């Protein structure tokens, strides 16, 4: 019989799961207020998904264009999110992003510089001004290394290659801890904690064509869901317009939006620059309508409007999809992304060194001479764990969430560059919120041994079964299902088919089997992740089925327009009393009138207002 007293236990005030940008930032911030801070991560420190972010982090520093202001960043974010963002979160983000970037520089980040010696900023889709602080096209690496090198000198107890299995609660429903497993040895450990911050990232590994690594299996969503927390907006999955499409083995790997930010253009097989045909009504006034104007903008003319390649990601991804469907796709079924004809070879190597290297090695293609082939790839979850904006606490007491695994900040579609700044802003708020909560608890909440035993038994039964399903092949069928039925363009019948397949896979998963021992066994790890992937996939498919409109990244072929009615609602997923997933429409809170005014103001009016404010 399993005896819980034989399992090692460690106590924390604040424990963070996930060591990407958000998790590290939360842990660092928590050390200011809390004595015992822990951090666990599935990979080695410094390898989390943040490392792959390329383009930059958005903040209205105004170093390149002085007209920038948090209000304009906020307006861009809301319009990019199709106004479904949680108003307060978008406000907090826009207001605090600049301070967080400057703080990161004090912690050791070395951004590219302007001529004046300040942090340089680049253009990106949906941002009115050059706004992204960056380091070539490896900004994520700079961010995670800075946080890592700074964080290891703070008093944080770091546990690497440690997988969180499930959350423990006390009798009153407060968070009490989490059961984890060291990947190296297979040893279980219980972390008792007053507050728990999830910074576990997204679940893009449920799709076949994805820019996400093995870690992105929706662990945070599933653990929070099992603990009774509410998930929100799961139907909004961002397909980044430019993933690699050739050769097959690299399909989905990200090609930074920075390529377009630096002037790259999209062409179809007929050589036509097709994005001019896909400018949405709402963005017509702010987008160039001729190649001549787009060229002037690239040359630095501040009166020229932005090229259509820099429309928001949802728009560009759909346009590429439509061109391919109409038979005008590139050789391997994508679009051509051409920077060679727009910039000198020297510029390209300087501004986009890792793209140059990536294509050279993986596709044997020189991007300073030839166009790249690109197509949509599953990239980011706008939805996630529902949190309170200022504290980042979920609907479960003591459970916090920040970064990609939290919902609300990005609405129906995220702007490029808003993710890295989100990690810093909400990582910081989570660290403070969780510390405050922990301080107010007089004693450590107590979990029940039975719960801990159940979690451990669920994990070990996968190894102990005589025979069962191969987890790798299960994962492949889930990926096929999501790619084909819950992809970039969705319809009722396919979504129903997708849900049916997920139900079948859930049944099969009860009998998943991993061969071998518990020591560093990827088959077992894959099997453990399957439950999380399936919960994530089900929440996505059910929410996508319920939302009968097209908004942002969620595109329904059978409901092609945004609906006034749906603007009023979020979709909430929650585990019901009977153990099945409840997916409901919930009316949004009314917007703060001042924020609503800013978001809906015309650009001219808002720019005039900001200029006026600065004078006085």
């Amino acid at each position, binding site marked *: 019989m399993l005896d819980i007293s034989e399992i090692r236990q460690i106590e924390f005030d604040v424990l963070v799961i996930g060591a990407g940008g958000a998790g590290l930032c939360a842990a660092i911030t928590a050390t200011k207020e809390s004595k015992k801070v822990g951090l666990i991560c599935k*990979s*080695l*420190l410094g*390898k*989390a*998904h943040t*490392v*792959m972010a390329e383009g930059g982090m958005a903040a209205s*520093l105004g*170093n390149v264009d002085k007209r920038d202001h948090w209000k304009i960043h906020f307006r861009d974010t809301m319009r990019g999110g199709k106004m479904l963002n949680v108003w307060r979160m978008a406000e907090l983000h826009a207001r605090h992003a600049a301070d967080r970037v*400057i703080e990161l*520089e*004090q*912690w*050791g980040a*070395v951004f*590219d*510089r302007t001529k*004046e*010696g*300040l942090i*340089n900023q680049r253009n990106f889709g949906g941002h009115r001004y050059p706004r992204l602080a960056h*380091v*070539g096209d*490896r900004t994520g*690496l700079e961010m995670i*290394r800075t946080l890592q*090198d*700074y964080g*290891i*000198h703070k008093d944080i107890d770091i546990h*690497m290659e440690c997988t969180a299995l499930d959350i423990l609660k006390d009798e009153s429903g407060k968070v009490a801890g989490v059961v984890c497993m060291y990947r*190296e040895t297979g040893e279980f450990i219980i972390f008792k904690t007053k507050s728990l911050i999830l910074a576990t990232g997204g679940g893009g590994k449920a799709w076949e064509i994805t820019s996400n*690594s*093995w*870690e992105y299996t929706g662990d945070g969503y599933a653990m929070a869901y099992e603990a009774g927390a509410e998930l929100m907006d799961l139907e909004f999955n961002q397909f980044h317009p430019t993933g690699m499409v*050739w*050769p*097959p*083995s*690299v399909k989905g790997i*990200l090609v930074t939006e920075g390529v377009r930010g630096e002037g790259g253009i999209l062409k179809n097989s007929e050589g036509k620059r097709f994005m001019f045909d896909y400018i949405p009504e709402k963005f017509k006034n702010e987008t160039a309508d001729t190649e001549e104007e787009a060229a002037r903008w690239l040359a630095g003319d501040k009166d020229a409007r932005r090229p259509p390649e820099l429309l928001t990601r949802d728009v560009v991804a759909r346009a590429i999809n439509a061109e391919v469907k109409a038979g005008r796709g590139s050789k391997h079924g994508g679009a051509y992304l051409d920077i060679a004809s727009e910039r000198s070879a020297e510029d390209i190597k300087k501004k986009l060194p*890792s793209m140059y*290297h990536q294509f050279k*090695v*993986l*596709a044997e293609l020189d991007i300073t001479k030839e166009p790249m082939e690109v197509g949509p790839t599953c990239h980011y979850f706008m939805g996630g764990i529902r949190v309170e904006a200022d504290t980042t606490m979920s609907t479960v007491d003591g459970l916090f969430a920040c970064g990609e695994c939290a919902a609300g900040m990005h609405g129906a579609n995220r702007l490029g560059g808003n993710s890295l700044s989100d990690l810093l802003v909400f990582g910081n708020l989570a660290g403070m919120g969780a510390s405050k909560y922990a301080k107010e608890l007089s004693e450590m909440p107590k979990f029940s041994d039975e719960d801990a035993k159940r979690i451990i038994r669920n994990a070990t039964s996968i190894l102990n079964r005589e025979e069962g399903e*191969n*987890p*790798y092949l299960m994962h492949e069928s889930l990926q096929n299902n999501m790619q084909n039925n819950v992809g970039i363009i969705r319809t009722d019948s396919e979504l129903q088919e997708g849900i049916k397949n997920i139900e079948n896979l859930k049944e099969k998963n009860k009998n998943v089997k*991993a*061969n*071998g*021992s518990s*020591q*560093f*066994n*990827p*088959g*077992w790890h894959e099997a453990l992740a399957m439950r999380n992937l399936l919960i994530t996939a089900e929440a996505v498919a059910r929410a996508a089925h319920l939302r009968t409109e097209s908004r942002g990244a969620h595109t329904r072929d059978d409901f092609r327009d945004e609906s006034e009615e749906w603007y009023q609602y979020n979709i909430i997923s929650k585990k019901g009393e009977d153990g099945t997933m409840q997916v409901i429409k919930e009316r949004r809170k009314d917007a703060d009138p001042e924020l609503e005014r800013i978001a809906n103001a015309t650009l001219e009016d808002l720019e005039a207002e900001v200029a006026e404010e600065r004078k006085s």
Partner: protein
Amino acid sequence: MGNRKFKIYRGDNTKGELVDYNCDVTEGMVVLDAMHRIQADDANDMACRWNCKAGKCGSCSVEINGRPKLACMTRMNEYSPDETIMITPLKSFPIIKDTVTDVSWNYKQNKRIKPFSPSQNKNNTEKGLVMQQVDVERTQHFRKCIECYLCQNVCHVIRDQGAQDKFVGPRFMIRLASLEMHPMDDADRIPAIKEDYGSGMCNITRCCTEVCPEDIQITDDGIIPLKERVVDRYFDPFMILFRKIFKK
């Protein structure tokens, strides 16, 4: 490209062997793809580390036919069709299982290094640090490092002499160089570079530079300048005199 032969190390630090596998290889595949295919079909419990699959995270470092490489950036067509591909763990670190090694020693070295200490002079402003691009370029060059530890793996001091207690290794020499050459860093790490981090141990064979997947000029731009700074400080008679006179 057809069916290819592999030999992959299976086992741990105490015992292990090279096991034969076969795998169908298609156009554009890298070695990591083949490892994943083998894992899914024939060896479910075969341990391997990886993350980004695009040469950005430095997780999948292994030795392929004896050469230290990132498995995700090594294309199958680099090898002739009849060549057997041998995949073994990094030799300089203890094996955990199969191709996965215990690299925790590296994390301990990083912790010994005094982190960035921003100067509070007039260039530290409300709008951030004021530094010219040309002055940060060297530091940025070192900060491209993805911590794959291939350089640590081939460093003679670590690999052949086993002198882990005397030298932090090339990865952390360039971490030190990135801090020492940061225009707004105030700390002085030169004494520690000489005494604690073992700059004198490196005999400039440039093996580290050769294997760096980020093409960082570890030896010429990082280690040698640091060695020179140590020499200037401790062994240059003119400088010693200069410091005595001006009490610096």
